[in-house]
């Protein structure tokens, strides 16, 4: 039963691994199909680009989760409630910047490479996490809180034993959304020299080369789908319903 649930994500991970290992063969095969000739001898192997991509996603994801949880918890607590609107405004302002534009603007300030991309990605990933953390924590049935308080639980205990477990699936859903967005958005990081699978996509688009595009897009999509499935599984595990 458990095995069956893990089957889809397992299969996708296997597919992804195959693609990473046999990237050259894949490329040759695809060029045959599209009957185009390769224009660039790839200097960076797919695996390296993949690792860069993964690193970017993981690092920005971890920062975003930590920051997002902190902000979400803060603004849903009694102390931070008054800052809620301000935070919301700042974050929605950040969201108004298209990801590509955000990257373009961060670079002059931070410089080339992954730092700029990371900042932009963190800003992007933040919103769903903050939003869901807030919604999850404040959405807990007030009767439960009332009962917990009435039983003599302290605030900390109410938070860890009642609020957090009850909000967990909403928070995790936020993290899942942001992770999927992030995997996809990290593709653009190539535009500022941060590497990752976006290098193939951006070059492919510029060079009108479907093989390059697919070589970049397929692993990215697989990553996104896998992340989605795995996170859903975690959500299922951690939520009571």
């Amino acid at each position: 039963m458990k095995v069956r649930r893990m089957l889809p994500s397992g299969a996708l991970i296997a597919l992804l691994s195959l693609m990473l290992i046999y990237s050259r063969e894949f490329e040759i095969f695809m060029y045959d199909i599209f009957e185009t000739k390769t224009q660039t001898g790839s200097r960076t192997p797919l695996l390296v680009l993949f690792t860069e991509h993964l690193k970017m996603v993981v690092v920005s994801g971890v920062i975003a989760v930590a920051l997002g949880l902190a902000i979400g918890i803060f603004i849903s607590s009694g102390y931070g409630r008054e800052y809620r609107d301000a935070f919301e405004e700042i974050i929605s302002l950040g969201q108004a910047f298209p990801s590509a534009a955000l990257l373009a603007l961060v670079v002059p300030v931070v410089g080339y490479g992954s730092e700029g991309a990371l900042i932009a990605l963190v800003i992007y990933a933040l919103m769903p996490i903050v939003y869901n953390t807030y919604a999850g924590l404040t959405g807990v049935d007030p009767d439960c809180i009332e009962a917990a308080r009435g039983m003599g639980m302290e605030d900390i205990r109410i938070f860890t034993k009642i609020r957090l477990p009850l909000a967990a699936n909403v928070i995790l859903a936020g993290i899942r959304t942001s992770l999927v967005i992030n995997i996809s958005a990290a593709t653009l990081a190539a535009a500022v020299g941060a590497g990752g699978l976006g290098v193939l996509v951006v070059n492919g688009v510029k060079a009108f080369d479907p093989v390059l595009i697919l070589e970049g897009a397929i692993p990215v999509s697989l990553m996104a789908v896998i992340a989605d499935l795995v996170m859903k599984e975690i959500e299922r595990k951690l939520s009571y319903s």
Partner: protein
Amino acid sequence: MVRKPEGTLLIFAAAGLASTLLLDFAQAKPNRILSGVGLGAFEFLGIYGGILVIAFAVIIVSSVQSDVKRRHLISGMAASAGIAALLLSVGPMASKALPPGTSPRISIAPGVYVTLLCLYIILGTSMRRLKGHRYLKYAFVMVAAAAAVFAVASGSLSDLSIMKEYQVKRSQFAGNLKTHLFLSFGSTLAAAVIAMPFGYLAYKKPGLEGKIMTPMAFFETIPSLSLFGILMVPLGYLGSIGIFKAMGVSGIGWAPAFIALTLYGLLPIARNTLAGFKNVDTGVVEAAEGMGMGKGGVLWKIELPLAFPVIFAGIRVALVQAIGGAVLAGLVGGGGLGSFVFLGLAEASSDLVLLGVMPIVLMTLLGDGLMKAVVKRLEIGGAI
């Protein structure tokens, strides 16, 4: 009784003050691409920098004021005055600060943005808390807005680097703006036209829900740029066929961007359509049927009006997404404001990037705000 100070006012006024005192407000560059010397608020704005400092100081003092109404009145006034002073002084001061040379540039530096952001949040906070004082509230906004409009319209900003970029790109600007609007609004409209019936179908036939939603969710996992790129192949092929060619379809240009943006818009709209219909109280539908309304009557008079606020919220999400996504059209020859962004990126000119980004951000905020207001209206109109 001394009240707790207003945290939001206090913190953002302090942040604004810090940015005024510490951050660069402008960059004086010898030419378009070289970095230049940073100018602080006082070096750049002179006496107007002082006004900003005073405004923040006033806000800090008023945030500990005991009378809640008064503290927001004063803060709101100070914030809108600060915004006006900043916006009105930036242009003329830029003309003064231009360094010597054949083609010197003055670029706005982060300090201005941070300061504006702080003032904006303070203004927003005060307005929210000033319930009831309708006219006063709007007066504050009007002052700030009028200052912005005047600064742009009077041409006082013409010595700013971004306006010089605009001068050069003037002939393309309107076209790119139009393309961007077409791409984002057009694709959202197309997505709505396609997704709403599908959402309704998923509602009527719960068995189909998975079959309809899963493919839409799949598009969402494909990185936007890849989708643009992948679409170029079949579209390039289509574009060689007569009718499509006549329609202007081709592997490059607006078509792949338009289609990709439409595909991305499907999920939020379909999902919200489904949720909107599901949300309609079954009792209400039953009552309508029980009164002898036909199927069409129930759909158009009851279900749709009741589901619409939720559907519209989905359209809002799709639109905001499309406005941002349309930037990438600039990369596949689709035009739009993204062309400026990518050209700016390529020419290492952040002012050119900004020339593309600013209208997009404004468009997003305006579109979002407008649609939010509409949703609110729809709800107040009795739907929820």
